[in-house]
C-alpha cells in the first residue's frame, strides 16, 4: 500500500490516521459516558486523566492529519448520486470540525474548572482560560452537546459506508479498510458477495 493516497485509494498514512483516531474517539466517548457516573474515588480521577490524555492525543493527531491532508490528494469520489456526495462531504467536514472542537472544548472546560491537565502523567499542559464557574458550566454543556452531535454525524458516516459496502457493493469502505483489496473492474460484484 502506498504511503500517499492516489486517485483510487487512500494511502497508508491516511488509513492509519483514520482508524487510529476512530478507535481513540470511540474509546473516549465510552470513557466520557462512564466516568461521569463514578463516585468520587481514585478510579474516577484515573479515568478522567485517561479521558483527557486520549482527548489531547486526538487533538495532536488531528493537527498532524490535517497537515498531511494538505498535500496528500484524496481519492476521487466513486460514482454515486449527487445528494450522497454532498451528504458524505458534509459529514466529513463536520467530523473534521468535531475532531478539533471536542478536545478543545474539553481542554477549555478543564481550564475553567481549575483542574490540572496532564498527558499520561508525563507532562502538563497550561490552562487556556482562568478558573470561572459560569464559564465552566457553559463549556461542560458545550462539550456534551458536541458529543451528541458527533454521535449523530458518526451514525451518518458509518451508516453511509456500510450501505455503500453491503448494498451498493462499491469500494467506498474497501479503499479505507486496512489491508483490504479493492474490487477491480474485472471482478463482478456478485463474485464477492458469497464471502459476505
Amino acid at each position, binding site marked *: 500500500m502506498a504511503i500517499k493516497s492516489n486517485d483510487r485509494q487512500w494511502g497508508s498514512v491516511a488509513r492509519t490516521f483514520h482508524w487510529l483516531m476512530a478507535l481513540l474517539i470511540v474509546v473516549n466517548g465510552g470513557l466520557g459516558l462512564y466516568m461521569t457516573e463514578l463516585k468520587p474515588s*481514585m478510579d474516577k480521577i484515573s479515568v478522567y486523566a485517561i479521558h483527557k490524555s486520549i482527548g489531547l492525543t486526538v487533538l495532536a493527531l488531528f493537527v498532524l492529519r490535517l497537515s498531511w491532508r494538505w498535500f496528500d490528494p484524496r481519492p476521487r469520489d466513486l460514482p454515486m448520486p449527487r445528494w450522497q456526495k454532498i451528504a458524505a462531504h458534509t459529514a466529513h467536514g463536520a467530523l473534521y470540525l468535531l475532531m478539533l472542537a471536542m478536545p478543545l472544548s474539553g481542554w477549555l472546560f478543564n481550564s475553567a474548572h*481549575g483542574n490540572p491537565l496532564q498527558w499520561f502523567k508525563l507532562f502538563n499542559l497550561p490552562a487556556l482560560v482562568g478558573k470561572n464557574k459560569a464559564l465552566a458550566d457553559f463549556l461542560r454543556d458545550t462539550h456534551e452537546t458536541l458529543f451528541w452531535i458527533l454521535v449523530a454525524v458518526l451514525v451518518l458516516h458509518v451508516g453511509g459506508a456500510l450501505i455503500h459496502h453491503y448494498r451498493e457493493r462499491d469500494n467506498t469502505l474497501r479503499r479505507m479498510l486496512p489491508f483490504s483489496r479493492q474490487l477491480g473492474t474485472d471482478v463482478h460484484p456478485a463474485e464477492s458477495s458469497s464471502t459476505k
Partner: protein
Amino acid sequence: MKRILCSLLLLASIPAIAADYSVQPGSTIGFSGTFQGEAFTGQFKKFDATISYDPANLATSKLDVSVDISSIATGDSDRDNALPGGEFFSTAKFPKAHFISTAFRNDGNKVIADGTLTIKGVSKPVSLDVGFTPSGDGATLAVSTTLDRSDFNVGTGEYADTSTIGADVKVNAKLKLTAK
C-alpha cells in the same frame, strides 16, 4: 544595702524570659501540595497558637500550635469534600493537628524549631524554619517546613499513589504577633 545587693544578684541569676505573644487575626497557616503535576494551595482557617519567643534567648522560646483540620480549604469542592474523609485526615476521629516545640536552635543564620508534630494520631519529630521579624510592639513569625504526607497516613489505600498526589507538602505559616 546588703539586701538590695542580694536582690540584684538574684535577678541577674534568672535567665531572661522570652516574651509571650498572642496571635492576631490575619495570621495564616497554609500549605501547598501537588495533584497531577500541578501545585495547589490550601489553608487552615482555624487554629490556636501559644508563642514565647526571644531571638536572643532561644532556649526559653516555645511554640505550641493546634490546628482545626476540618477548617481546611483548597478552593476545590471535590478536594475539600475528600480531605476530611478516612483516607485523608479522618477529622471525625482526629479533629486536630498539633505541633509543640522541644527546642529552638541557630543553624547558620537561620533559626530552627525542633518539635513534635501530630497529625491523624501519628507523632513525628519535625523541624521548622523560623523567621522572626519584630515590628512595633509585635512581630511576624514566618514558619515553614516540608512534610511527607505518607509519614502521617494522609492519603491511604488508592490515594497513597504519589504519581497522582505528590508526597511532599510544603507548610507555610505567617503569624502576626502582639506582645501579651
